[in-house]
C-alpha cells in the first residue's frame, strides 16, 4: 500500500531521475518533514542544485521558476498552502500564463506549481482557501486537482512534463489516503475519470470531494439509486465531452467543489452544461460547495462548513424526488469532523 503523499514523492523522484532538467524547490522541501512527506530524501538523492529550500519570497521564486524554465529546466515549485501563493499572482498570471501567448508562441513555460489546500484543525481563514476558479479563469494555465491516491503520481508526472504552467492542487486531507495501485505512466491532463456508473444523476467532483462522493454514491447504490460519479481530475482544461455525455444520459447534474460557492467552478460547469445539454436536462443543475464565507478556526464553527457524504446523498434524494437514508453514512463517521482521520492529532 502506498499513500497519496508517497505517490507524489515517487512522482517527483521519477521525474528527477528520468529528466535531468527537472528541479524541485519550495519552503521546506529538503527539511526533515519534507512537505508532509512528499519531498523526503530528494535533496540527498539529487543534490542541492536541483532540489532546494528557498526564502519566503513567493513572488520572486515564481519568477525564478519561469526564468529557469526559459533557461531549459522544468521547475516544480511547492507552496505548503495555496494561500501563500497569493503573493505570486503577478508572476503567475502576468508572466507564466501569458509568456507563450504574448511572445507569439515562441517559448513555453513548463513549470508545475504545487499548492496544498488546507482544511480543519483550525486552519482558519488564511490557511484553507480553495481558489481553483481563479486559476481556471486565466487563459494559459492548466489546473489539476487529484483525488485518488492512485491518480496522484500519474497526474503529477503529466503536469511536470506538460509544456505549460500547471497548478497542481493537493488537498491536505488526501495525503494519508492509501492505494494499492501504483501508477507508472503519466495520466493525460484534461481527462476526467468515471468512478461509478448509473443513470440517476451525474455527479462531478474534484479533489477531496470525490472521497465524500464515493461514500455517498455507494450508500445510494444500496438504496437502488445509481449515479455517474465523475472525478474531474483536471479543472482546466475541462473534459467537456465526458461531462456532456453523462449529463445527456442522466439529465441531472450535481457539481461538488471544495471552494467558495459563488463565482466558483461549479457555477461555470452548470452554465456550460445548461448551454450544451439544455434539451436533456430534467432538473436544474445543482451544486454543493463550501459556502460564501471563510473557514473559521474554532471547531465549533466548522461543523457544517464542508460538504460531506450525507449532504450529497440527501441532495441526490431531493433531485430524484425520493427519500434517501443517510443513516448508513452517519453511522460510519469515525473521527472528529475537523481532522482527516484518527492519525491526525495536529498541529498542522
Amino acid at each position, binding site marked *: 500500500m502506498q499513500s497519496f503523499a508517497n505517490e507524489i514523492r515517487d512522482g517527483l523522484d521519477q521525474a528527477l531521475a528520468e529528466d535531468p532538467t527537472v528541479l524541485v524547490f519550495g519552503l521546506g522541501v529538503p527539511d526533515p518533514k519534507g512537505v508532509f512527506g512528499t519531498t523526503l530524501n530528494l535533496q540527498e538523492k539529487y543534490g542541492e542544485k536541483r532540489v*532546494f529550500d528557498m*526564502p519566503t*519570497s513567493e513572488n520572486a521564486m515564481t519568477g525564478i521558476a519561469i526564468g529557469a524554465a526559459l533557461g531549459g529546466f522544468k521547475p516544480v515549485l511547492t507552496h505548503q498552502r495555496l494561500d501563500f501563493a497569493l503573493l505570486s499572482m503577478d508572476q503567475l498570471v502576468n508572466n507564466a500564463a501569458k509568456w507563450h501567448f504574448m511572445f507569439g508562441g515562441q517559448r513555453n513555460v513548463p513549470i508545475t506549481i504545487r499548492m496544498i489546500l488546507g482544511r480543519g484543525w483550525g486552519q482558519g*481563514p488564511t490557511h484553507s482557501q480553495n481558489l481553483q476558479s481563479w486559476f481556471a479563469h486565466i487563459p494559459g494555465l492548466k489546473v489539476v486537482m487529484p483525488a485518488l491516491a492512485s491518480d496522484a503520481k500519474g497526474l503529477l508526472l503529466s503536469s511536470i512534463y506538460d509544456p505549460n504552467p500547471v497548478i497542481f492542487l493537493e488537498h491536505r486531507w488526501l495525503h494519508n489516503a492509501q492505494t494499492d495501485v501504483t501508477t507508472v505512466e503519466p495520466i493525460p491532463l484534461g481527462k476526467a475519470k468515471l468512478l461509478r456508473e448509473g443513470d440517476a444523476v451525474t455527479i462531478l467532483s474534484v479533489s477531496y470531494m470525490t472521497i465524500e462522493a464515493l461514500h455517498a454514491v455507494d450508500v445510494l447504490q444500496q438504496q437502488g439509486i445509481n449515479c455517474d460519479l465523475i472525478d474531474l481530475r483536471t479543472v482546466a482544461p475541462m473534459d467537456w465531452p465526458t461531462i456532456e455525455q453523462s449529463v445527456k444520459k442522466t439529465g441531472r447534474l450535481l457539481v461538488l467543489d471544495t471552494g467558495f460557492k459563488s463565482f466558483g467552478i461549479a457555477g461555470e460547469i452548470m452554465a456550460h452544461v445548461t448551454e450544451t445539454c439544455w434539451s436533456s436536462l430534467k432538473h436544474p443543475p445543482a451544486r454543493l460547495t463550501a459556502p460564501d464565507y471563510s473557514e473559521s*478556526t*474554532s471547531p*465549533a*464553527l466548522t461543523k457544517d462548513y464542508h460538504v460531506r457524504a450525507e449532504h450529497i446523498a440527501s441532495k441526490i434524494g431531493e433531485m430524484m424526488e425520493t427519500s434517501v437514508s443517510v443513516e448508513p453514512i452517519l453511522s460510519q463517521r469515525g473521527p472528529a469532523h475537523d481532522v482527516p482521520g484518527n492519525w491526525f*492529532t*495536529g498541529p498542522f
Partner: protein
Amino acid sequence: MTPELAKTLSHGMRRIRTVEETIAERYSDQEMRCPTHLSSGQEAVSAAIGAVLRPSDLAVSGHRAHAHYLAKGGDLNAMIAEIYGKVTGCARGKGGSMHLVDEAVGFMGSTAIVGGTVPVGVGLAYSLMLNETDDIVCIFLGDAVVETGVFHESLNFATLKNLPVLFLCENNFYSVYSPLSVRQSHMRQIHEKVSGFGITTEDGDGNDVAAVHEIVSRTVAGIRDGNGPAFLEFSTFRWREHCGPNYDDDLGYRPDQFIEDWNAREPIGLFESQALAEGSLTQDDIDALQSGIEDEVKAAFEFAKASDFPPASEASEHVLAASMMGSLK
C-alpha cells in the same frame, strides 16, 4: 536597574513562559485545535518592549504572537479562550492562536501570512502621523520576514514618510526547519542589509533582557522624537518545534552545539541571577511574581474551558460589515 523595572522584566518573561509552557502541557488534550506557535525561550524581547511601550502605542505581529500580545497588555483570558476556539476569545474563536487582537491596549492584530502585517503596521503609523500623536507602532517580525518583498516595500514607505515605526526583528535563525543559510546570503547580517536604507538600525542579544530594554528604550524615545523609523535585530532561540507543543531537536535540524550554547543562555535565569546578585530582585520577589502568574494562568485556562463555543450561526457572520451610510453627516 531599579527594583521596579527588574520586577517588570522578570514578571513579563515569567508570565509568557508560564503561559506557553502551560499550553504545551495541555495541547495534547486535543482541545486547542489550531496551529499554535510557542515563544518559550524567546521571552526577553517581548518583556523588554512591553515595558517600554505605552497602551496608546500600537503593535502588530505574525504567527508567533502570544508573547507580543501579552507584552502589549493583551487580555490573557481572551487569548487562551481564542486558542480553545471559544466565543469569549479575543476574535470570538474565528482566528485562533494565529489571530490575536486586543485593540483596547493597542494590539491591533496578528495574522498568519509571513510579512502580512508589516505594511498594516506602517499604515497604522501613517494614521498616527496624520493624527499628530507621539505614539509609535511596533511591528514584530521574524527573520523570515526580511525575505519578503512587502517588508522592503514597507520599509521604503516608512522611511520616505519618516513614520513612527519600530521594526522589531526576533532572529531565531530558523524559519520552520530552515536555517538562515538556505534563505539569506551570509555576506551581511539582517540589520546590516536593512541599514542600507539609511534608517537607524542596531542589533543585540535577544536573550539579555536588560540589554534589549536599554536598546529599545533609547530607540523608541528616538522614534517619539520624530527621528523616523528604526529597525532592531535581536538574536534569540526557540525552544520547541516551530508549530506545536513538542521538542523536536531529535530531528537534527539545529546543530547540537547551537542548541547547547543557547540553552546555556536561558533568558529568565540569565537575568534573574544578575538581578539577584546586584540586589534589584530578591528570591521572595520572584516567588511572589511566579505564584501570582500561576494563579492567573490557571484561572485563564479555567475561564477558557468554561466558556461557551460560539453558536454555529456565527460561522457565517462577520463577512461584511453593515453599512454605516446612515450615520454619515
